[in-house]
């Protein structure tokens, strides 16, 4: 399919988009916690595919793995930039988040709590959880996407889950104390 895309076959491009767009958006959504940015990332991934398809050498890694890696790296870049902006505008951001949380219905509130807790994790822990738990990807492929060993991935997963559980517990205590 990649070879066909490289020769300009628009049908192959269509098939690739239909097969992977959902996953690209979902990964970016969980990583960035922002639906609009998630769509921007997905678009960037496919632009990179169009440009690099001709240079693709089969055998080095699965194309799917490469696409996921590109998506994760684009998310890391955006998170890095976000953190720089966040440090400058911290007080206002916190007030806005609190107001939004108060206005949501119960189910949305739970999802928001998890998303907020996910947002507090280190980017690599978030990536590991997104790939293994939300994308239901195998540990070998997830480790390959993140360019780490399976042991390192497992360590990121357990630390991420522990941190997530602690953050959710903290949020619950805060809600009970109000």
């Amino acid at each position: 399919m990649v070879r066909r895309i490289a020769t300009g076959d628009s049908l192959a491009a269509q098939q690739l988009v239909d097969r992977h767009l959902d996953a690209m958006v979902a990964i970016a959504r969980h990583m960035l916690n922002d639906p609009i940015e998630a769509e921007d990332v997905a678009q960037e991934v496919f632009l990179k595919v169009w440009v690099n398809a001709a240079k693709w050498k089969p055998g080095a890694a699965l194309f799917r793995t490469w696409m996921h890696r590109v998506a994760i790296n684009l998310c890391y870049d955006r998170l890095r930039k976000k953190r720089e902006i966040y440090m400058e505008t911290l007080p206002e951001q916190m007030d806005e988040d609190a107001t939004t949380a108060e206005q949501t219905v119960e189910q949305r509130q739970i999802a928001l709590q998890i998303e907020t807790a996910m947002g507090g994790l280190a980017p690599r822990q978030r990536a590991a959880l997104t790939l293994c738990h939300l994308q239901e990807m195998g540990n070998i492929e997830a480790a390959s996407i993140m360019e780490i060993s399976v042991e390192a991935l497992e360590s990121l997963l357990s630390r991420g889950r522990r941190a997530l559980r602690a953050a959710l517990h903290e949020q619950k205590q805060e809600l009970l104390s109000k």
Partner: protein
Amino acid sequence: MKPDMSMEQFGDLAAAYGADFEQWPMEHQEPAIALVAMRPSETTELLKQEVGLDNNLAALPRQRPGVDLRNKILRSFVPSIATDTFSIAGLFEIIFGRGKHARGFAFVSVLLLVASGAVGGYLGGDLLINTQDTAVWDVQVFYDHSFVLEPGAGT
């Protein structure tokens, strides 16, 4: 009987992959089930701690991309971007498409191209000779002409 998996390893895997064995690496699934059968109270206690978080993660909304995004991405697919390496086969594929018939058309057109090149070359050679002849004739005419103007010739 000694189990293939220790409680510590079971705990580490549960902490990383959660309570659902289907999410665990394949090679650990069977030993984990065997350990649960041998030590049910300790293992289920460990799994219980993970179930809540698994449910929370499963409750996260899955964002579905809109049709607009799909179309926008497909509009960004320009074949000229994709084809940054040129090949004759690729060019024929663009002109004639793919498949057995397309290959036939491509073969016939190559033959016609070669044949027309040969005929063109032959005729072109003839024309070149004629041009040279004409040039020689022109020169001869030029030198046959008298350089000395006869009286009254220029008036």
